[in-house]
């Protein structure tokens, strides 16, 4: 059986990975829709890089399975040229020039676009004659991005590729990724701690926490599941009764609460009439609340919603 041409979805079934006595992924079930840009979010040590490594066949699961386009990627000759993992470590040949590294990538990536690679090399002001070992942290990241975008792999996993990049370069990265994705659809898994910056690029979000899936959801649905309420303490307290409260702050007579709720128009109007300010909760804040210790119940509620 061969996976169909085009964007490759990713699926994990009861996937467990242990490093000695440490469990990095604990019976993970998740799926990344083919053709989506999916955010893989999680705190340090949550298992993001392990999941990426198993998906790209850099590592074998301890138990369970990972499927790429419905197939096991391990030593799968047909699949592997179509799956690309770019790690922050770069995975380039340190003693060869960037030009040679690009040529190598072109040889083993069927959809590689030299034109895109050259344009991005210019955009990031990378010298094709330089060797990776001479590059700064930011330049190494930029080269990883060049490879990641130009390879046009049907499953492209970008794991913390923005490290050391300044803000203008990160925006150039987002623009290049989006433009090339639109022209050449593929599945992109984007792992980043800069949630505020990447959230609008995402169609789907997977949050890992301590090796488990905290939630896996459509990003637009997730964006409207949180409400922040600000106003007089008494009114805020009245509003949150019976709702799941993710966070609370109080300053003098004013309180703010972040609750899991999608308000009906009437509820919102009532709240405003009571002197409450309602606001959206950015994905990053939702993430911070949900991955805080003791927030697992709230996350489960969200997962069921």
């Amino acid at each position: 059986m061969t996976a169909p041409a085009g964007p490759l979805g990713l699926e994990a079934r009861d996937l467990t990975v242990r490093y000695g006595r440490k469990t990095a992924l604990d019976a993970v079930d998740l799926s990344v829709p083919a053709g989506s840009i999916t955010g893989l979010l999680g705190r340090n040590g949550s298992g993001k890089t392990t999941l990426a490594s198993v998906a790209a066949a850099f590592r074998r699961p301890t138990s369970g399975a990972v499927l790429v386009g419905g197939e096991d990627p391990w030593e799968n000759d047909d699949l592997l040229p179509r799956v690309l993992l770019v790690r922050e470590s770069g995975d380039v040949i340190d003693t060869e020039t960037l030009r040679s590294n690009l040529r190598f990538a072109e040889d083993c990536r069927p959809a590689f676009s030299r034109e895109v690679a050259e344009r991005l090399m210019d955009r990031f002001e990378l010298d094709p004659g330089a060797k990776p070992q001479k590059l700064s942290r930011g330049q190494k990241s930029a080269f990883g991005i060049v490879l990641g975008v130009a390879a046009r792999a049907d499953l492209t996993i970008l794991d913390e590729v923005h490290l050391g990049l300044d803000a203008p370069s990160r925006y150039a990265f987002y623009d290049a990724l989006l433009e090339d994705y639109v022209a050449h659809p593929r599945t992109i898994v984007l792992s980043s701690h800069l949630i505020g910056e990447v959230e609008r690029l995402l169609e789907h979000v997977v949050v890992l926490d301590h090796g488990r899936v905290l939630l896996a959801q459509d990003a637009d649905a997730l964006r409207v599941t949180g409400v922040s309420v600000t106003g007089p303490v008494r009114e805020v307290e009245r509003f949150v009764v019976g709702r799941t409260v993710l966070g609370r702050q109080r300053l003098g007579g004013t309180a703010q609460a972040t609750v899991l709720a999608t308000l009906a128009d009437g509820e919102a109007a009532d709240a405003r009439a009571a002197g409450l300010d309602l606001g959206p909760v950015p994905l990053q804040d939702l993430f911070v609340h949900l991955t805080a210790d003791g927030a697992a119940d709230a996350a489960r509620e969200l997962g069921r919603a």
Partner: protein
Amino acid sequence: MSTTQYATTFRINPATAAKAFAQLVDDGILYKRRGVGMFVAPGAPDRLRAEGRETFFAETVDPVADHARALGIPLEDVIARLRAHAARTAGDRQDGAAS
């Protein structure tokens, strides 16, 4: 402009941009012509204006009144300002038409 251009211009996921357009089609503001593109429905500007009028006082004017009260600005001052602004912009528009 295509939905793709919206996505790259505003740096948002193309699916999000497509959803926004689908919503406008559902609301009858836009309509699709297969193979040609999307167009603004006849009467859509009037409908949007009518909807805007419905929410204008509750969403725009009432908060201004609340804000003015909180700052201790008499309502008469607010009204005078609105009249002055309207007179000024009406004048500008006539100048523009004349030149």
